[in-house]
């Protein structure tokens, strides 16, 4: 039983850096979403979220071919929003080979990538992505992986040293799948967006320490304020909360060598 009770200081001093948010118009849009970076900033302001690592809806629900470059261009002059790109297999010629792709990332100021295997219909494995994943590992580039826990386990077995962030792991409790993975792979991180079951954030921090959990809202799939309030009121020490809210993502991005 958890006995400690850690109250949020309520000073608005905490820096929230959302690792999982997006703008743009999908084919089946949410009732409320952000069409543009300005609208995303307004939504973040409403919830007290300072910064975002951002992808564009078209990179997930459409083709990264169309939206990786424009997203970086959109956000080039917005200090609160940092762009992330989505990956595709290079064998089809849709994305360049790893070395060239990393050069394009560098030129566009991109320090993080997303993989959407279900949306884009590929296997996230060594057969398909060995060169790119080895390069990401060598350069400490974080890969945000939207993959169910069984496939995530297969993936981590192949690339245990990659800096990976598992996202959208829920909304149910998937702990019976996830804990063996987090026990085995220290470079595997998790975003908070779907740690919605009562007590999961607290037990994750207690079991794995403050360094492997990242604040994510999954906006606009979900309400960003829900994720923000959940973390703000999590029953964890204040320094752990600050690390989860922003410090861990800042650290991962600072470690990128590109």
């Amino acid at each position, binding site marked *: *039983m*958890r006995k400690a*009770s850690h*109250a*949020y200081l*309520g000073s*608005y001093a905490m*820096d*929230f850096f959302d690792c999982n948010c997006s703008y743009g118009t*999908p084919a*089946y*849009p*949410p*009732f*409320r*979403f952000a069409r543009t970076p300005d609208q995303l900033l307004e939504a973040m*302001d*409403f*919830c*007290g*979220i*300072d910064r975002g690592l951002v992808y564009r809806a078209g990179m997930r629900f459409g083709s990264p071919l169309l939206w990786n470059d424009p997203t970086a261009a959109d956000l080039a002059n917005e200090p609160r929003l940092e762009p992330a790109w989505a990956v595709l297999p290079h064998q089809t010629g849709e994305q360049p080979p790893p070395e060239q792709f990393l050069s394009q990332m560098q030129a566009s100021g991109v320090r993080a990538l997303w993989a959407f295997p*279900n949306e884009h219909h590929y296997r996230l494995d060594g057969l398909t992505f060995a060169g790119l994943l080895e390069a990401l590992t060598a350069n400490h580039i974080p890969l945000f992986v*939207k993959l*169910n*826990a*069984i496939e995530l386990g297969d993936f981590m077995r192949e690339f245990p040293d990659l800096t990976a962030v598992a996202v*959208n*792991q*829920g*909304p*149910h*409790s*998937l*702990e*019976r799948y996830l804990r063996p993975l987090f026990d085995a792979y220290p470079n595997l991180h998790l975003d908070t967006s*779907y740690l*919605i*079951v*009562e*007590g999961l954030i*607290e*037990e994750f921090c207690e079991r794995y320490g403050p360094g492997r959990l990242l604040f994510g809202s*999954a*906006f*606009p*799939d*979900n*309400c*960003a*304020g*829900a*994720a*923000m*309030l*959940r973390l*703000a*009121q*999590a*029953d964890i020490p204040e320094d752990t909360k600050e690390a989860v809210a922003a410090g861990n993502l800042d650290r991962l991005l600072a470690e990128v060598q590109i």
Partner: protein
Amino acid sequence: MKPSNPSLLAADFLAKGYSDDCPLIETHAHYGPYQGAYLPVEPHENRVHAFQRAGVTKALFSAQSAILGDVDAGNAMTQKVVDREPELFAGYWVVNPRNAEHMARLAGDYENTHGFVGFKLGPAYHTYPLDGPAYAPALEYADAHKLIVLVHTWGGSAFDSPQQVATVAGRYPQVAFLMGHSGFGDFETAVAVARHHEHAYLELTCVYAAHDFAMLPAGSSTPIQLASSLHVNGIIEYMVEHATSKKIVFGTDMPWYSPHFAAGAIMYARIDDEARKDICHRNARRLLDRVTPTDT
């Protein structure tokens, strides 16, 4: 940074985790372990602690095992919890239309309880349609006694769609039907049902989070995923606009949705504080005032 959200209630929740001006009445909670997932909220004290930290003053609940296992043993568990903390908890009696012997003694069993306010129906879990004849005795009883009936609902379901709620709401007009999960995925229909039927309500559990079944290795107990399930942001605003804040009640499926996550979705929806109070406690209080708990 300070949120630009002008809500005083949201500021309270952010600063303290609760608001004295906006207690939460939980209309859809569960109790006990679940075979398909690890739930950290056990034991009992953790659950009460979580409620207290978010300002939950009353929790209407059923035992998960009553829905998914032995209905009699599960309902007995509910009774024990109500007896243990009657100020905090009130019970739903789970109805299983697949268990004829249980159905035959339903009214008598219910009248022997203490602190129950209605029934919990899980048509999809029992693969039996809400508007089918085996549910009729329970719904007739609920209609005669103006009970609260919480129904698991899901868009596109063959067993508990919002359209089926409309059917039974028409047949049993005195039942306060809470549409659990607000007909998830078919929100527009659920909102229309709530608007057109005086005692039909939208219950918010699940509405706080998108459901992408591709992320669930063992799938979901609810077999349908509509495209609309992939996003939920803004739905509470849509409900308030089209069904009014008077037709929405707070619930968390405890422990499936953290009370603070659920409260956050309401506090950071683009609605006013009066609507937030309606959703968080006023509507549920009105419903509880309308029903006489058993053995009181």
